């Protein structure tokens, strides 16, 4: 997917052509600098709590998951509430094999799709659906992923409890771990083993 050969189309891809060579050892700083290139929401919808994870927080979280838990390389990952995609893109840069990003908002998904193609990343798929509909319906998505990452809505905008529904969905979809950011601990990564 990410190639570093001479005819790499530099004109429309962002600057991380060297990552393929050094994926295992890509530093947190380097990851953060790549993630700074990710375009964020044009018109964030407050009702959907479209606050992008900062490149700094995303890089710290993902780098920790990668180096301390070895939970990204070669893994199958879901990103719930993918938004503009900073977490999914970071997972792909750190060597996961496949990511499914899910969001309810078509405009966020369009920005995300654009980010994915600008980075010339080809192992992220997107799904337009409501996380709430995944909770009560054990379909084939349940247990289909090694790892779930997410920065869910916190439930502070007349949508109280949505954070818990995201967690429930995450725990249903993941076989190994769910890494999620929450109100009281945005500075830390919550690691929940099933």
């Amino acid at each position, binding site marked *: *997917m*990410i*190639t570093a050969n001479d005819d790499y189309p530099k004109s429309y891809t962002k600057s991380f052509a060297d990552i393929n060579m050094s994926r295992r050892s890509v530093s947190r700083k380097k990851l953060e600098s790549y993630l700074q290139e990710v375009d964020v929401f044009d018109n964030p919808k407050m009702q959907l709590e479209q606050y992008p994870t900062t490149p700094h927080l995303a890089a710290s979280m993902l780098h920790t998951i990668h180096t301390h838990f070895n939970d990204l390389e*070669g893994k*199958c990952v879901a990103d719930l509430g993918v938004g503009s995609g900073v977490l999914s893109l970071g997972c792909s840069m750190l060597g996961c*094999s*496949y990511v*499914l990003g899910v969001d*309810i908002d*078509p405009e966020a*998904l*369009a920005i995300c*799709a654009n980010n994915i193609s600008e980075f010339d990343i*080809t*192992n992220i*798929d*997107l*799904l*337009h*659906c*409501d996380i709430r*509909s*995944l909770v*009560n*319906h054990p*379909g*084939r*998505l349940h*247990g*289909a992923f090694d790892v779930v990452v997410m920065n869910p809505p916190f439930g502070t905008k007349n949508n109280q409890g949505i954070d818990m529904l995201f967690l429930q969905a995450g725990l249903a979809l993941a076989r190994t771990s769910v890494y999620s950011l929450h109100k009281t601990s945005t500075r830390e990564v919550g690691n929940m083993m099933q």
Partner: protein
Amino acid sequence: MKLLTHNILTSNIIKGVTRGFPLKIKSSRLEVKEVDFNPDFILRILPKLDWSALRQAATEVGYGNGLPEELPSSLEGDDSLQKTIHNILLQVEIVEGELECPETGRKFPIQNGIPNMLLNEDEVS
């Protein structure tokens, strides 16, 4: 939408639908994108997939060639079949088309590679 994604999507989020799998696929535009080949990933994920649904989906979009009816008990060492499976799981992408619920016929459009499975209020169970 990759066929790996198709293999894990179900329409049982709709009220009254029990299994909702496999979703029928129609593709009006398809692309093949290069993805790093990781044989370990393919070997690890295959047992979790529904082979006959995958084979069927690949056939529906014109990539069914060379897929055995039954998956051999081990793919270890069969480099060529591993690569064929890698191609249909991760590289073939439906860019424009639709998915269809096998029980209700409800259609889910795929636009710009993204399947839309958002339901109307009255369809949610």
